[in-house]
């Protein structure tokens, strides 16, 4: 296991070196060198330039993830359970997902104002779908034999859900959540693209107008790190769950 991290790290260094060398033959506008980017990043972090933007985006992502996640899971469970709802709602849900949020942004702003709300809504919408899809599928997958057991035990629908369907579909649900957390960041950033004066997404737009490519890359690195933290959190949850299942990894 230790060896893997070493390789992963070596690969990372290797990519960085290639990048550094390549960047020499390009204008800083096109491809800034990693060294320059890191300097910009450290500088921005130390001077507090990033602070308010990081806070803002983090708040949006976390709120959006919370609402979108809870909604995706709940609706997923309901639709997995009730075939009627599934058939009734799926067209609307696919529609709501297939529509590019960015294009609807002006409408969101119209409905939810300029503040954080509109971005939280977009984020929630974006991370709603993967969790919903996986929950619906996972909920329906559970073993028929075990379902008969629960029928026999006189379990209510809710109990069957809590004690059978959700636990047995947990890994699938967590796979959906992993996709969701990563998309949540994209959602928040895209939300900030359209009409934000604060947050890392707004900063990216600003850096483009400023033609400060190094600062843009630094911002992207911050976003990536944030994404990885969220992703690893879900992976950790999964590991905890697997531990419950078998004592091995």
């Amino acid at each position, binding site marked *: 296991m230790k060896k893997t991290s070493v390789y992963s790290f070596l690969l990372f260094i290797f990519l960085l070196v290639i990048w550094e060398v390549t960047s020499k033959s390009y204008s800083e506008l096109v491809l800034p060198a990693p060294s320059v980017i890191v300097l910009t990043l450290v500088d921005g972090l130390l001077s507090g330039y990033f602070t308010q933007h990081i806070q803002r985006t983090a708040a949006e992502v976390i709120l959006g993830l919370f609402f979108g996640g809870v909604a995706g899971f709940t609706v997923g469970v309901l639709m997995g359970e009730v075939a009627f709802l599934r058939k009734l709602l799926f067209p609307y849900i696919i529609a709501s997902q297939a529509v590019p949020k960015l294009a609807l942004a002006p409408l969101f702003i119209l409905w939810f104002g300029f503040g954080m709300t509109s971005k939280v809504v977009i984020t929630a919408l974006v991370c709603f779908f993967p969790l919903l899809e996986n929950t619906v599928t996972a909920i329906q997958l559970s073993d028929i034999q075990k379902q008969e057991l629960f029928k026999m035990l006189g379990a209510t629908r809710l109990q069957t859900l809590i004690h059978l369907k959700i636990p047995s579909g947990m890994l699938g649900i967590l796979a959906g959540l992993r996709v969701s957390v990563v998309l949540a960041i994209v959602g928040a950033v895209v939300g900030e693209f359209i009409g934000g*004066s604060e947050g890392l997404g*707004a900063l990216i737009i*600003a850096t*483009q*107008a*400023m*033609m400060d490519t190094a600062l843009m890359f630094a911002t992207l690195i911050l976003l990536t790190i944030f994404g990885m933290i969220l992703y690893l959190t879900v992976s950790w949850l999964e590991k905890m769950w697997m531990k419950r299942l078998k004592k091995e990894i």
Partner: protein
Amino acid sequence: KEEGSNEKESFAQLTVALWSQPITESVNLLVDDEKGFFKEKGIDLKVIPGAGGGDAIKNILSGQADIAFTDPGSLYFALDKGEKLKVIYNIYPQNVFNIVALKESGIEKPEDLKGKTIGVYSLTSGTRQNLLILLHQVGLTEDDVKIVETGISNFAPLIQGQVDATAATDTGLYLAKQKGLGDVNIIEVRDYLNIPSDVFVVTEKTYEEKKEELKRFVAAYRESAQWMLENPEEAAKLAKEFAIDGKDENINLEIIKLRNASSVSEDTEIKGLGAIDADVLQKGADTYQQLGLVNNQLDMSQVVTEEFLEVEQ
């Protein structure tokens, strides 16, 4: 401060919808907490961001804002759709757009662009519209050149040689030069058709209902613009705190200087800042119609109002 809260009740809430994020070049709108241009006039100013002049107009149409900080192109489109709008202030009477080509390309005047590949931000950006205007002035059309959408960092393809020329603004050109853009030839659109870059637009309804507040707003904005003209260093310093792109004070200063230059014209020397030239706006509208960008004949004299520009006392 007991009276402060009392005073607040007589304060007029006004919201300005920007075409962009709160950026350095509009710093005079952002520093009211510090400088109080608008507060002194009894205005509680709020600024909301947008992505393009179209957003700014939609935001006033939907009631999210009272005043739009927008370009004439977006104004023409909205008027074309039958919206009732009023232009109350000319923010930048100078056209800030230009076409930039590398020295070695040999492009020096609009006619040289024939058959060349030219980069623009996007299909609907100001860079494309102004490129079309320029071409139109010298009798060329879209079909005589190859326009490519390069995305927002449009100087990169120019440096890389993927395009022969790129359409940009004065500030964009300045920044690109900072980033190592070599010797270039510049064709200024203002030399061919100097339509304003940005104007303040309100809906007819707001115009009727908030005359008093709008008058105070225009006066306050004028003061703030005057301040920016007179104190570019201070403005550059404040931009560091108040503008999202104000990271580097020196760059801020240069940008503010550029904007100051585009805020004044022969007209403003005479009539004061914000003077609107209805004729040139009309010319712009006609050009847009000839280019097929708008369908209807627009009458700008119906749209322009200079009643808030009269200097008091």
